[in-house]
């Protein structure tokens, strides 16, 4: 019971930390570390709630050596649990919470991937009809008067530029754009975004998940910028962005108040700040690891402690 309450308190605290975590520029300085931290935060919140439910539903079972002992212990514990009306309510609520959160998350992940696959199929069919391959073979060209560059991850991993985008960029800038898109494909950013999106859709009222989703969408772009800047000058990547923005489509609908991430991207390409130091990066990754391990550790602790008690004869009445 106490373990479950601790886990729930921890989940609330972790979710509540999201708005604070968004502040500052730490993630922009090392986008890859930032992505890991935001992913871990989402996972830890969901895992804590599920495991708290499980802990309420399944009272700590004494660790036993034989199946007969285990079953006897189960019956005793469950009898105790259901002998009081409160116990039954708590158990049912816990089981329901765990099952509901898992089912909702699983369903949204599943439907996200189904709809992505459907959209992918229709996209690649249109591309087969409309795209012509660039002589270099690196990307497809679609005739269109709006400048756009994107990639279609999948078996073929296509990179697509419209004819207007080609016209807006010189050879170096073109190479920078392709390097950026290649980085997306290589790092499998589409899966990272899809998972964040699915979690956000599963629990749209949880601000932490919506923040994690928008932060991850922003950070994968910065990560791809950084990877592109390894083989291209940073200013070339920035120039390609500005040129495409100038030749690009005017937004059809008003965007959210936060504006776009383009300005932050150009700024950090034009005047880069140093990436996180080794110590800070280490701390961030350690925090992410703790977030992943902690819920499970708390949930397993009672069972582990009974195991400990039994293997150490002191303080445990001999069963004979």
């Amino acid at each position, binding site marked *: 019971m106490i373990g479950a309450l601790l886990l729930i308190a921890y989940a609330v605290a972790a979710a509540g930390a999201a708005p604070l975590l968004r502040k500052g520029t730490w993630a922009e300085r090392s986008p890859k570390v930032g992505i890991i931290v935001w992913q871990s935060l989402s996972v830890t919140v969901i895992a804590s709630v599920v495991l708290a439910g499980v802990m309420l539903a399944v009272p700590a079972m004494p660790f036993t050596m034989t199946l007969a002992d285990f079953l006897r212990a189960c019956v005793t514990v469950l009898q105790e649990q259901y002998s009081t009306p409160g116990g039954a309510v708590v158990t049912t609520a816990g089981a329901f919470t765990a099952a509901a959160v898992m089912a909702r998350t699983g369903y949204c992940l599943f439907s996200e991937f189904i709809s992505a696959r459907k959209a992918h199929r229709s*996209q690649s069919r249109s591309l087969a009809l409309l795209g012509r391959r660039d002589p270099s073979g690196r990307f497809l060209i679609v005739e269109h008067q709006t400048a756009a560059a*994107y990639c279609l*991850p999948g078996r073929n991993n296509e990179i697509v530029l419209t004819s207007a985008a080609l016209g807006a960029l010189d050879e170096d800038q073109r190479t920078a754009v392709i390097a950026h898109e290649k980085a997306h494909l290589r790092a499998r950013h589409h899966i990272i975004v899809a998972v964040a999106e699915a979690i956000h859709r599963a629990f749209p009222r949880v601000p932490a998940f919506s923040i994690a989703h928008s932060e991850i*969408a922003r950070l994968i772009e910065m990560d791809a910028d950084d990877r592109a800047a390894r083989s291209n000058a940073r200013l070339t990547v920035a120039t390609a*962005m500005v040129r495409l*923005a100038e030749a690009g489509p005017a*937004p059809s609908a008003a965007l959210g108040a936060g504006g776009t*991430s383009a300005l932050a991207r*150009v700024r950090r390409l034009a005047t880069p700040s140093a990436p996180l130091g080794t110590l800070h990066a280490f701390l961030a990754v350690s925090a992410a690891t703790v977030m992943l391990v902690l819920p499970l550790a708390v949930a397993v602790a009672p069972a582990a402690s009974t195991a400990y008690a039994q293997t150490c004869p002191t303080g445990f009445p001999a069963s004979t």
Partner: protein
Amino acid sequence: MHRLGQLESAIMERMWSRPGPAAVRDILEDIQRNRDIAYMTVKTVMDTLHRKGLLDREPDGRAFRYRPTQTREQYAAAHMQEVLAGGSDRTATLLHFLEQIPADEVAQLRAVLDRAEQDKTQASK
């Protein structure tokens, strides 16, 4: 691109470049100038294109005459609209180099870039 996709695109390419409707045999003869291909193969793919809504057809004797439901330009425009509609509300299907940006922000982007380029040329002097 897989073989079937190539054939679909070869057929659509020919349909789009024709002024009027065409029978399977017309397209077949056109393609056969470049490579050997069976009548049934072309017919099957054209039926598929009809089922997918890319080709219209009307009976003509014992066969059908086909015509594209959209011009190539219309089809490209619809495709790009779908691509660009993503905007900031992205799905996992496409990863854009850049989301759509309001005009005033484009000007800001340009200003940041110009300043950085100025600093660079000054530094190298």
